[in-house]
């Protein structure tokens, strides 16, 4: 029996790593997901059959119930709301780790250190994801929440967590572990609270990794190599994605965790003497149908306005009717989580072959006739390149300004998600199209159709 279960675990492990590996290209990705499902099903089936469970029907019922809840919520969620969905699932994984660690401590497992590690990481992932979910869903303010003595309080909590952990490992009393669990949950909550909405891609990645590292802790506690292997692959994934996001914003982890960004935004006063040129959708349509090459730069604002289908229609018309070359340029932090914009465009039916990452398209703006910026702002801000006093300075941005004409679809001249002023609005080759992203794009489509 032991040989059977171990063979199944081994095969399951192989399948799940291949599943991640298959995400290297879109055409192998769907097969990869199926392999992942197969691996997971195999591992769970083997465990249910081989372990001496107290009540088989109940276990199967609970798993089916969980599967039903998971399927229902995954089918219901809108693609714009994916980040909070992922945050919620991460939180559940973290909470599961906390439950297992508590259950192990109650049944007097001798693995005190491993249980503590699993519980701390799982607990931080759970309460942190809870706050991230609330912020993304708009249940609490997305802005950085600050109050007096916040960081001393967090530091004190952090030290207490370490001290209590050491105490518990030296003298394993259950009540100590319960107190430690409570402290960890509070700490996770307070750690994410000061992080601003624009930094959510980093937070979600970190928490995603957290649910993996928590599985590693539980794997060490239960002597299970499957949990350790899969947990560390997931943990590495979350950490790498967080690293990519931090790089794409030219920030540091410490800066993000302290919500440092929004604290400095008041430093850039808007120069009132500059004027921005406004245009009408008809003018934009005229310029675009006579262009040879157009690059569309979407941001989360496009998705928030439900404009992606109108953008798709516009791109298709320009390509098929007016023989214009149309490309999409995506900044790594264009959405609310890594790769979010790619999924939003894919949902609208835009061919992924037309979508380019920043590094692959940035030198093409100079040869583009039109850059159509819709619902994006900070990721095009040229002061990130040349204004050392800007809070965005050093962040890699799309070279939108190099296009012959830049159209900015925006409600007003206000700052972006970061609240920083964008000098591109006042550039001589920029034309502002004021209004709702979807409304403006639909008007352009109407003109292009006739």
């Amino acid at each position: 029996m032991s040989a059977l279960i171990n063979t199944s675990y081994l095969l399951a492990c192989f399948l799940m790593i291949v599943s991640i590996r298959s995400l290297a290209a879109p055409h192998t990705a769907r097969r990869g997901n199926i392999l992942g499902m197969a691996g997971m099903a195999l591992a769970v089936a083997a465990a249910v059959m081989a372990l001496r469970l107290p009540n088989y029907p109940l276990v199967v019922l609970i798993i089916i119930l969980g599967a039903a809840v998971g399927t229902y919520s995954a089918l219901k969620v809108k693609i714009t709301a994916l980040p909070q969905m992922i945050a919620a699932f991460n939180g559940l994984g973290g909470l599961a780790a906390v439950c297992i660690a508590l259950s192990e401590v109650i049944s007097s497992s001798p693995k005190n250190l491993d249980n503590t590690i699993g519980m701390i990481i799982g607990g931080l992932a759970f309460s942190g994801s809870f706050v991230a979910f609330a912020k993304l869903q708009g249940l609490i303010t997305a802005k950085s929440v600050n109050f007096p003595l916040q960081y001393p309080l967090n530091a004190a909590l952090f030290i207490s967590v370490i001290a209590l952990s050491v105490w518990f490992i030296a003298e394993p009393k259950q009540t100590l572990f319960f107190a430690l669990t409570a402290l960890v949950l509070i700490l996770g909550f307070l750690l994410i609270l000061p992080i601003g909405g624009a930094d959510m891609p980093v937070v979600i990645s970190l928490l995603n990794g957290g649910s993996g590292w928590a599985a590693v802790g539980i794997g060490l506690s239960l002597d299970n190599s499957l949990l350790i292997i899969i947990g560390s692959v997931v943990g590495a994934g979350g950490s790498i994605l967080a690293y990519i996001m931090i790089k794409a914003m030219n920030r540091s982890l410490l800066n993000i965790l302290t919500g440092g960004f929004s604290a400095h935004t008041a430093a850039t006063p808007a120069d009132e003497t500059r004027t921005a040129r406004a245009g009408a959708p008809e003018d934009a349509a005229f310029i675009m149908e006579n262009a040879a090459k157009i690059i569309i730069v979407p941001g989360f604002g496009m998705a928030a306005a439900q404009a992606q289908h109108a953008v798709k229609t516009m791109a298709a018309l320009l390509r098929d009717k007016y023989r214009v070359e149309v490309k999409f340029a995506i900044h790594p932090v264009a959405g609310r989580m890594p790769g979010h914009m790619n999924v939003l465009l894919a949902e609208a039916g835009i061919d992924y072959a037309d979508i380019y990452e920043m590094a692959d398209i940035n030198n093409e703006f100079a040869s583009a006739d039109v850059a159509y910026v819709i619902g994006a702002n900070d990721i095009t801000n040229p002061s990130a390149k040349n204004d050392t006093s800007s809070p965005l300075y050093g962040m890699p941005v799309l070279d939108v300004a190099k296009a012959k004409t830049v159209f900015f679809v925006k409600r007003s001249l206000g700052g972006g998600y970061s609240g920083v002023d964008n000098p591109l609005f006042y550039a001589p080759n920029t034309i502002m199209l004021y209004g709702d992203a979807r409304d403006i794009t639909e008007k352009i489509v109407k003109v292009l159709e006739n």
Partner: protein
Amino acid sequence: MDIWILLTILMLSCFVGYFVIWGVTPALHSPLMSVSNAISGIIIIGALISLETNSSAADLFLSYLACFLAAVNIVGGFVVSQRMLAMFKSREKK
């Protein structure tokens, strides 16, 4: 198992994770998050193992709860990944 064997496995799989993740195309980073989210639900095995040793009702309840939460995580993660991946289409691949 010997802790040093477990730690060796941990170290090696961190390297595997590092290389496998960097191989993922940036366009698929969202599906990567949801697939990895789903497979992190492998912690359900931990929940099942902890069901084997139950000393009290509280212990049993926590293990069942963990089982349920991990099941939501696994199936939800895979279904949402499937939904996302089904949207990625290209005229070049027909």
